[in-house]
């Protein structure tokens, strides 16, 4: 009983001090636009329908004209499962350690990095 | 152990004029008609074949509704399947043999529209709200679609 009184308090001082997160922590999603090829696999496997593919142009392959697509992420519905990260063959997606995602504007959570660059 | 179990199930199945089929190494399925269900379940429960009822599942088989009783004992599983007609259907209740089945039967009554004769709580709703419209078909049938249910229950903004 008395040894507990002499111990340091167990409460962490977050948010006044930074908190240490483990390495595998699953936070907000991030994409590297240079690696994305628009293969659509992430959109097909997402359980929460977060990813929509939009057309950004066309390209010619031989004498065929193909659509070029890139993903838009609606992160307010993301469940942080990591299926898209595991299935991306080009390692373009990554889960960061950012977890402070509360915002009064829902449009802050739409990630258009792959489309606008 | 599995051989003994199968033999005992076969013994009960003969009285119900049916035969068990083995789905997998330790899973058996018996198709029983409605009139023999109570007798079969009573034999399984009271003769010590299985004293564990997992649950009762409702199933939409297209033209009829299936009701499956899942029993298990050690590593063996027994599925007892019976079918009833799709609309305004009645089925036999096993509540006097196994009182714990009362909530499972209430759930099938709510979600598939099957009335169990002999269940004392058939007039109460378990899962559906009191204001479920009378003309709306039960939700888990294949013909009931989620958007229509949401519209009728006013779950979307006008």
């Amino acid at each position, binding site marked *: 009983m008395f040894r507990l009184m002499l111990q340091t308090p167990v409460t962490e001082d977050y948010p006044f001090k930074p908190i240490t997160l483990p390495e595998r922590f699953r936070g907000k999603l991030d994409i590297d636009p240079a690696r994305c090829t628009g293969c659509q696999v992430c959109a097909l496997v997402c359980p929460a329908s977060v990813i929509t593919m939009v057309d950004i142009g066309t390209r010619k392959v031989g004498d065929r004209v193909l659509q070029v697509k890139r993903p838009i992420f609606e992160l307010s519905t993301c469940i942080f499962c990591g299926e898209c990260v595991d299935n991306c063959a080009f390692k373009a997606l990554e889960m960061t350690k950012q977890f402070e995602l509360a915002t009064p504007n829902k449009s802050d959570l739409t990630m258009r990095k792959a489309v606008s660059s | 152990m599995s051989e003994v179990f199968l033999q005992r199930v076969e013994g009960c199945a003969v009285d119900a004029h049916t035969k068990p089929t083995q789905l997998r190494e330790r899973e058996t399925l018996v198709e029983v008609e409605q009139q023999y269900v109570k007798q079969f379940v009573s034999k399984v429960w009271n003769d010590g074949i299985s004293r564990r009822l997992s649950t009762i599942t409702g199933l939409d088989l297209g033209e009829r509704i299936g009701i499956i009783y899942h029993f298990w004992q050690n590593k063996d599983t027994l599925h007892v399947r019976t079918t009833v007609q799709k609309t305004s259907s009645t089925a036999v209740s096993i509540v006097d043999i196994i009182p714990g089945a009362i*909530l499972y039967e209430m759930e099938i009554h709510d979600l598939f529209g099957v009335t169990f004769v002999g269940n004392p709580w058939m007039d109460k709703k378990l899962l559906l709200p009191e204001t479920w419209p009378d003309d709306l078909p039960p939700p888990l049938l294949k013909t009931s679609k989620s958007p229509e249910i949401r519209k009728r229950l006013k779950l979307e903004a006008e």
Partner: protein
Amino acid sequence: MKMSESKKSARREETAGLMEYSTENLVPFGPIHPALKEPEYFKLVLEGEKIVEVIPRIGYVHRGLEKAAEGRPWVQNMYMFERTCGICSFVHSLCYGQAVEELTMYKVPKRAKYIRLIIAELERIHSHLLWVGLMGHWAGFETLFMWVWQDREIVLDIVETISGNRVHKSMNAFCGVRRDMPENMEDHIVEKMKYLAGRARYYREIIDTEETMLERTQKVGKLSVDTVEKLCAVGPMARYVGIQNDVRLNDPYAAYDEVPFSIVTRNEGDVQGLLRLRLDELIVSTDLITYAVKHLPEGPIRVKIPPVIPAGEHSSRCEAPRGEIFYYVKSTGGRTPDRVKSRQPTLANLPAALEMLKGQTLADVPIVLTAIDPCFGCMDRMSFLDTETNKQWTWSGEQLRQYGIKHYFPNQSRNSPILKETHP
């Protein structure tokens, strides 16, 4: 505020009418009550302080998961069923995964089975610690609650290091697990398990000797063996009267047939027996994890399977912290299931809980209802009853929101900028 004479007489008439109306002592318990973690409505019929009958009404958090599962691909359903419950999330995805894996011809690698066992037992320790803390809280023993929940943080930290998240682990996949155990974690886990087992023995001593706990838990919630068997109770609710009903022993799954496992049963048949049972199970879990971590076999952790599952039907069961979880899956050979049925242990334990309440006093209700370790999951709604016309109607979440906006912003039009910013 002064009421006028006419208003006062009208009010007297109203209350007189209500007093004549009720003939039996009905106390409504719920749906929103401090003792319940999730909403459920119990109508308690009382004679003085003793409970005579209990009529349940569930369906307050029903989400229609079984209907929603019929239109989604197999893998997406795994994430959806994981979110049936927070505390037993891994076991739900494990049970569903096992039911579907049997329909394919692929086998689960050995290392994956051991990792599944480790995570499932960590979840069990977490759930039992949470429950012991809650029992202390409802009995009025706040210190026990605080200390137990501090130990719970150790388990959550281990889970976060392995899987990345504290509660929804998302570790399961068809025929395997998604992530391997991190390097050099073995010593850390073994040390923490030893510490937790020591704490569990200390709490065991407390519940046996502390006067508050003894008063509130001894001889409360008694049931006989025959009643429990007939009411199909599962898990600790069957084991606390002495029935040897444990899926890990009777029908082993994952790696339970290869690790030394001993079942825990008790004979007291009251809530104190439940407390002792769950703490003993906690100690058994720490031993299981220590063994599994030291004997982890080498090899792959996952076998990738195609997205189309062959036709057939299969059922599987697992031992969740609360009892037996049962999943039945039917496939017609497509990318989406035909029927998925999941039965949670709390539904099976509910008739036994109602039986336990008969004969107890009103003050025992929170203790007994928490003793079955409830985890309800059903449909959300707000219901109105007009007593004069006996008309009932409900509001949806959207209607409730619109009502709130009109109440707090009565003079704002629907297109005003403040409403657009705060209520898009």
